[in-house]
Structures are given as C-alpha cells and as structure tokens.
C-alpha cells in the first residue's frame, strides 16, 4: 500500500485547509448540541435513550450522515481530474488502491470527528453525574463511523464517475437518501420477498439493531465493511478506467 499514508495526510490537510470543513464542523456540532438537549427532554432524562437518538435513532442523524460525506468526497477525484492532478498522482509511484483508500480514510476520519460530538455529550452528561452506558455510546459511535464510511465510499465512487463535483455530490446525495428511506419504501409493499430483500441491504436497520444498542456484532460490521469495500473497489476501477478513456 505504497503512498497510502502520504495521500491520507494530504487529503486530511486538504479537507481542513478549506473553509468547507470548518463550516460543516460548526454546523454539525451546533446542531447535535441543540438536538441533544431536545432528545434529553423527549426522553425525560433518560441519558441512554438520548444518546441513542444522537447516534442513529433520529432523523437528524441520518440527514447528517447522508449529506455530509458527499460534500467531502465530491471534489476528491472529479476536481483533481479536472485540474490534471490525477495525472500527477497516477504517475507517482503509488497504486490506485492507495489513492482511493487514502482519500476514503481522510473523509471517514472527518466524519468520525463529526460524530465525536456525541462522545462529548456523553462525557458532559457523566460530568453532570449520570454515567451513560459507555458500551452503547462507543458502539453507537463506531456504527455511525461505519455508516459514514459506507456513504463516503459511495460518494467517492460518484466522484470518480464524473468530472463535475456538483454532479458527484448530487448523485451521491440522492443515492444516500434512497438508501435511508429504503425501509420506508419496503414497508409500503405487500410482497414478502421484497421486504426480505430490503431487510438484507437495510443500512438503517443494520446500524440500529446492533451498534446502537452496544452490540458490536462481526456479522453487522462485516455488512458495512463489505459494502464499503465494494464501492471502493468500483471507485478504484473507475479511476483505472480513466486511463483508458
């Protein structure tokens, strides 16, 4: 995996050197902070329930998870291709896989930072005297990171398909919204096997049923990892295909 670390570091630097990352962080932290207060009120002081809201039980979580990764990944390949930087990267002694993985990990790291707001809230709650279920908190955080990883991978994949960042962002946001509302669509049908099929690929449920309640099940982790790997694989291939165009 030659050059992975160098690319990861540069991409992370690239994310934080622009104003976008800081804007997103401010929005995410302010929103999550405010919402956490709301969750606490709705749960009538049940800290664990409030944290569960913060890490996946609420719509706000899924909105952030669906919208943020495309904003981070949209420029990663498409813009570089337009600026000719891809020619630079792909003639440096690094593999295409390293390029894609480096970019992917940088975006996912940023998303991990976004979800750390929840950890912060748990810490604050503990300072206030109520000890949260730390297993569930870490599980929720890990699940959130895995979900964002998957969405970063699809975003990167979209970015590798086009030379226009906006198109990449739009495409992946639509895809993410579809993924998130898939269970709702599934509920509309009568057909049993469609529901079963949807349950197999239901990202929302895979997160809620395992990580959110503090169970890190390898099967559920595998679900996310495999899908992420698939999209990263497609992104790598698409990057490779650019050479042939």
């Amino acid at each position, binding site marked *: 995996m*030659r*050059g992975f*670390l*160098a*690319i990861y*570091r*540069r991409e992370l*630097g*690239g994310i934080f*050197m*622009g104003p976008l990352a800081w804007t997103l962080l401010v929005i995410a932290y302010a929103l999550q902070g405010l919402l956490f207060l709301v969750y606490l009120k709705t749960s009538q002081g049940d800290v664990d329930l409030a944290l569960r809201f913060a890490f996946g039980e609420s719509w706000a979580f899924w909105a952030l998870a669906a919208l943020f990764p495309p904003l981070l990944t949209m420029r990663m390949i498409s813009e570089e291709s337009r*600026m*000719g*930087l*891809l*020619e*630079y*990267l*792909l*003639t*440096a*002694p*690094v*593999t295409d896989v390293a390029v894609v993985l480096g970019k992917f990990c940088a975006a996912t790291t940023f998303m991990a930072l976004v979800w750390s707001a929840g950890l912060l809230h748990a810490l604050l709650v503990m300072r206030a005297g109520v000890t949260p279920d730390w297993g569930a908190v870490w599980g929720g955080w890990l699940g959130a990171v895995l979900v964002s990883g998957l969405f970063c991978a699809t975003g990167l994949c979209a970015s590798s398909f086009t030379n226009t960042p906006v198109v990449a962002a739009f495409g992946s946001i639509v895809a993410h919204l579809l993924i998130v509302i898939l269970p709702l669509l599934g509920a509309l049908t009568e057909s049993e096997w469609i529901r079963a099929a949807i349950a197999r690929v239901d990202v929302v449920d895979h997160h809620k049923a395992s990580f959110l309640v503090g169970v890190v099940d390898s099967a559920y982790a595998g679900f996310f990892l495999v899908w992420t790997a698939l999209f990263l694989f497609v992104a790598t291939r698409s990057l490779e295909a650019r*050479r*042939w*165009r």
Partner: protein
Amino acid sequence: MRAVISVQQLTRTYGAHVALDSVSFEIGKGEVVGFLGPNGAGKTTTLRILAGYLPPTSGTARVAGFDVVRDSIEVRQRIGYLPESVPLYRELRVEEMLRFHARLHGMDRARTERRIGAVLEQVQLTERRRDLVGNLSRGLRQRAGLATALLPEPEVLILDEPTSGLDPIQRIEVRSLLQQLASHHTVIVSSHILPEIEAVCPRVIIVTKGRIAADGTREQLLKQLGDRSYVRLEAVVGPDVAKAKALLGSIAGVSEVLDKGRLGIHQCFDLVCSTDLREDAGAIAAARGWALRELSWRTPSLEQIFARIALGDGEALPSSALDGAQPAQAASAAPVELSPLVTLGPTTPTMPAKPPAPTKIVYNLNPFDAGAGRDLGKPKAVDAPKPPTNP
C-alpha cells in the same frame, strides 16, 4: 550504450482516433531527446505512456528495463514526469508540495530535506519556498513543477511542453535549466516549437500524425532530409536565359540548375550543389558581365524540414508560418522546394491541397435589375454570371 527507454510498435487509439501508430524508438542513458511535432501529433500520448499514466493499446514500452504496464510502479519510481498543465496542489506551499512528493516516493526525512534544499536551489525558488503554489506566476509554477519532478533524483526526466505558456525571458530560463539537467539525467522534452528543442536537445524525434517522421541529431536530419542545398543567383543575364542556365550548369559540382523565373530584368537561378559554389558562380557572372543582385548559399534549416514534414503529411500548418520561417523563399517556390520530400519519411507526404477559391458574392446594386422591390442589402446570386452589359 544501454537503452534506458525502449519503445516498440507502440500504438494507442482513442476510440476510432489513432493517436499513435506503431511507434518505435530507443533512448540511451544520458541522452537528451526532443519530441517535436505539431499539436495533436501524439507527443503527449507517447510521454503519458512512458510515464505509466496511459496504457498503450498495443506494443511495449520499457523504461530502465521495466515494462510500463506490468511494472508500472517500478517505472514511476524512476521517472520524473512533468505534464504540460503542471499539476500541483494550489493550496500547499512550495516546500509542502515537495515534501508530499517525497513521501509519495517513500524518501526518508533527512534525504527529503537535503533534496528539497538542492532542487529549490537548482530552480532558484529558495526565496519562494514558503509561498503558496497557487500564488506563483506561471513561470515560477513551472519551476516548482520541475523541482517536484527532480526531487527524487529520477533516472529519466519526462517534460511535456515545459516552455508552453511562458514569456520569452522565462523560456530562456527554463531552457538554461534544461541544459543544466541534461548532464545528470536522461531527458525527454516535447515541444511544438523547434528552437526550444534545437537549443537543448542534440537528438530530435519528429512526430506527425502518430508516426515518427524523422529521428536523429540535427546534422543527421539535415543530411537525411534536407540535402538539397543550393546557391541562389539573381542577376541581369540578358535575353538568352537558356544559355545562361547551361553555362551555370557547367560549373563542376552543380547537379541541377533551377530557373526560378524573372523579376523585372533580373533572372533568378538556383544551383543545386552539395558544397558552397558561390565563388564559381560569381566568377562566371563577373566574366559575363552580369549585374549581380543576389548570390547566396542556402542550406535548408531544421525549421524548414520540420515545416515540410508537418505540411507534407497534410498537417494544417498555415503557409504564412512557412513564409515567416523562411522569408527569403517566395511563396511560389515552395512547391518546388517540397518535391524532394516525396521519397522521404515512412509515409508518402502529399502536397497540401490548394485552398478553394473564395466564394464570390455578387452584390447587384441596380434597383431595376430584378424588380424594384428587391432587397438591395442581400446578394442577388452567388457566383452568378454577370449580366451582359450594353455596348
């Protein structure tokens, strides 16, 4: 001499368009080679294949013994490639960019810092090392790009149009930089501007339409392609032109005398010969009492050869460019000049087609010609025969 770069039967197509058509060449260690060709000739494609960016459609290319497709990483480790667009991260500082490049090449920290200092000194960017790449001017960015390419001390340096978009002073700077580099690396430079190549590269490969039209040193190319040097004589020779022509043809060493026509009272001849026979021709003129207007020794320049090759393959090089390169050549003489090339090059060059006669638009301003209601602003007919006029 061991070949550092060896290219065999390289072909690359983009869809139906053939960008490279079975190109083969070898470049030895320490050679400095210029890739010359009009835009779209396949220079960039060749360089991209060598740099491991594009895979060839067929054929093989080896750099330092490694196949560019199979051992791509090994090849990329050994080359410094600078694309024409000079892609650098605009948001990084010059030294950060260099550090990133060093990390991609897996250089350790001590070597990185040492090399950064050295290359910045080499391209004279030491004072600007803290500047953002995005804030550098085109020329400085070019130098920063060169510094990046040079950083890992590559065996082979591949520079695609390193002087494009630079002002004349910057061109000279880049050129002198290239001359320095020539002693340490095997260098391939591409350009569509001949003087750039001529100034730096002893060996020139001329590419047109995806094929190699010529390959060799300046002298070889001249010998190979432009052996028709001649003495031009323009003088008042009197009424008997044929006799004068025969007389000039009798000079030992003159293989052919071309009658270039008459300008006023002056008759112009080209004496095709391989050595400078100005003195002999001048002696004849003096003996005959011809009033000389011009007596000059002309050898075709590389520029002419390049223009010929580019033109000969039907490349759309405007004739004004030719005239500009050789102002002494009358436009009417150009086809005669071109004829010897028919036997040259791998492809048979064809003469550029004569430009079609401009379409004639006849504005007939006679309001009684086709009814008074006719719109006078519009042409009556295109290429219409003139109506017979009254005697």
